[in-house]
């Protein structure tokens, strides 16, 4: 049976929309856009404190976007926590999986540290590193570690807030000492970016793992019972 909305109206509307979008894209790309912001951004990379252009944009030129983006991540976690406690979690892994997890988790943490450091001059950075840490947490949760290796809620709260906190406070302090909000002084940029990225990595990793649990982590004593 043909349902007019689903089989005729929506598909033909979408085809028309696709034509319009494709045409606009063609005109946009073939127009007189030149290099867009590429040359301007690449020319300023040496002043940004890091040599990886994408990290320069994320942590320096458009650092304010990144600050708000960390706030979005925190908002999602706080929203998840407001919905209730985490479920009972997965059953305890047998020895083969447990052994594999015991090998992989340290490797993931090590790779996260590498990603964080390499982000200054090659693809990498806080988000990739944080994602690796989050993956380590997910792996632990899947293997039956009820809190995904995360600390108790009291200590987890400062950990997930750390990234935004260091970022925002750095911004405000730089404004107080006179440079302007998030305006890194020359020479200090590299170290400030490293400090912010380290804090962000820890927060992102913890937030992703905590979000995977799907609710507020169980209190400490409950964890021990299940372990």
């Amino acid at each position, binding site marked *: 049976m043909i349902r007019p909305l689903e089989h005729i109206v929506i598909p033909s509307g979408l085809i028309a929309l696709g034509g319009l979008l494709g045409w606009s894209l063609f005109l946009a790309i073939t127009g007189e856009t030149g290099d867009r912001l590429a040359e301007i951004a690449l020319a300023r990379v040496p002043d940004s404190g890091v040599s990886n252009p994408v990290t320069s944009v994320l942590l320096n030129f458009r650092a304010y976007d990144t600050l708000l983006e960390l706030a979005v991540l925190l908002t999602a976690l706080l929203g998840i926590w407001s919905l209730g406690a985490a479920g009972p979690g997965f059953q305890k892994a047998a020895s083969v999986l447990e052994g594999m997890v015991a090998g992989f988790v340290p490797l993931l943490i090590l790779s996260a540290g590498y990603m964080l450091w390499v982000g200054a001059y090659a693809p990498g950075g806080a988000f990739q590193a944080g994602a690796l840490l989050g993956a380590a947490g997910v792996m632990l949760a899947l293997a039956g570690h009820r809190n995904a290796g995360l600390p108790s809620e009291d200590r987890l709260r400062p950990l997930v807030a750390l990234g935004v*906190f260091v970022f925002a406070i750095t911004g405000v302090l730089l404004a107080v000492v006179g440079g302007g909000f998030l305006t890194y002084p020359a020479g200090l940029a590299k170290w400030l970016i490293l400090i912010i990225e380290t804090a962000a990595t820890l927060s992102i990793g913890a937030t992703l793992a905590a979000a995977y649990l799907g609710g507020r982590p169980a209190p400490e004593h409950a964890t021990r019972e299940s372990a």
Partner: protein
Amino acid sequence: MIDALPLAVTLPLIGALAVTVWPAHARGLGLAGALITAVSALTVTTEVWSRGALRADLGGWGAPLGIALEADGLSAAFLAMANLVALAVSVYAGGYFKRETARHFWPLWLLLWSALNGLFLAADLFNLYVTLELLGLSAAALGALTGTREAVAANLRYLLVGLLGSMSYLLGVALVYAAYGVLDIGLVAEAVEPGPVAWTAMTLMIGGLILKAALFPMHFWLPPAHANAPAPVSAALSALVVKAAFYLALRLWLDVFAPVLGEAAANLLGILGAGAVVWGSWRALRAERLKLLAAYSTVAQMGYLFIAFPLLAATPPGLARENLLAAVVLLALTHGFAKAGLFLAAGMVQKTAGHDRIDELGGAAQALPAATFAIGLAGVALIGLPPSGTFLAKWMMLEQAMILGLWWWLVVMMVGTLLAAAYIFRVLSRAFNREPTPYRFVNDASTELPALLLGLIATFGLGIAAQPLWRLLEQGAFG
């Protein structure tokens, strides 16, 4: 002196972190954060008032490479309204939420506040996308705080619709960057030329925003989401969050896509607005619950704001257009105060009566004279009776519609006003029923006074003292 612009965004963010880390002191820390935030934002408005438009280049790079924050008269006006309403909501929330809910409310609330201030001050199209998402996520999470199945389902729908709107907006931004190679609003405005690219980008961006502003017929998500949220959250969602999407649509319309516009697009928005006025008012009249009535009334009031687009498009630049624009802003601001006051008072009634079914309100409303008075004041402003700001604004819009010969908009606004009078009086007539005269006017100061104050501002403050708004709006155009 430290730049006030980034502080208005960063201070609520830091406040949110403080309540995240010390949830046991959520209420005290949250109220302190609310106060500091409101002071910093109102500082921005007074600075704009006395010194003209402000701009802060974050990171010191400047456009086009860096991101800037900007405040002109339009953003300063919305910023002031949002922060005053948010402060009143905070005081109300301090007494409303029990300990367990308070620890979830305060961090999300301050994050929402940060997103609002960030949105009003942003001067970068992609940064606006991030603030829109921060706003959408925190609003949906707050709306579900009651934890009932209806609230969670309604807010999941709201979240998904909001995400669809953001995606549409982001696709528009990607097209703008592909075509013009810049993201700063001022620079995009300089580069935009009429043509299919600009037209498609505008449709995608404004289309996404009207989904978030709940313009008829994309309003279906709003009534359940707003009516099932806790009262202070409903107040913020209805008064501020949908208003932020409208603000951004107006901003893009005026500052970025002005050369692209045809009257056809403006008329389409106006027709949808007219549909919203009639349908929203009708559903408000038929609503059985007070909060549902208030939510449908929001759908209708958003409609009036979009009727302004065809009027603005038809009015040639000059004093008449400036007056019309100021009238639209006045309408939006008055609705912000009035609707927040209405929701806060409704929440008080609901809490006392244990329900908000309009037909059975009788005694409960009368036992709370201050709350009922606040509903009355907010009602005056929603209908548009003198001396409210709505009266002045609608009067100017009607006058302009007459001058332009666009009488059909006039008919729509009249019908909407009559229906508004009907639904407000329906509530008030139930509120003054039986029951002996109450002893005390104010029963619970921290929850009733904010509602009353908001009603007073909407009816008297913005009506009689609307003149400063005109001066504020003269403060520098964007860019």
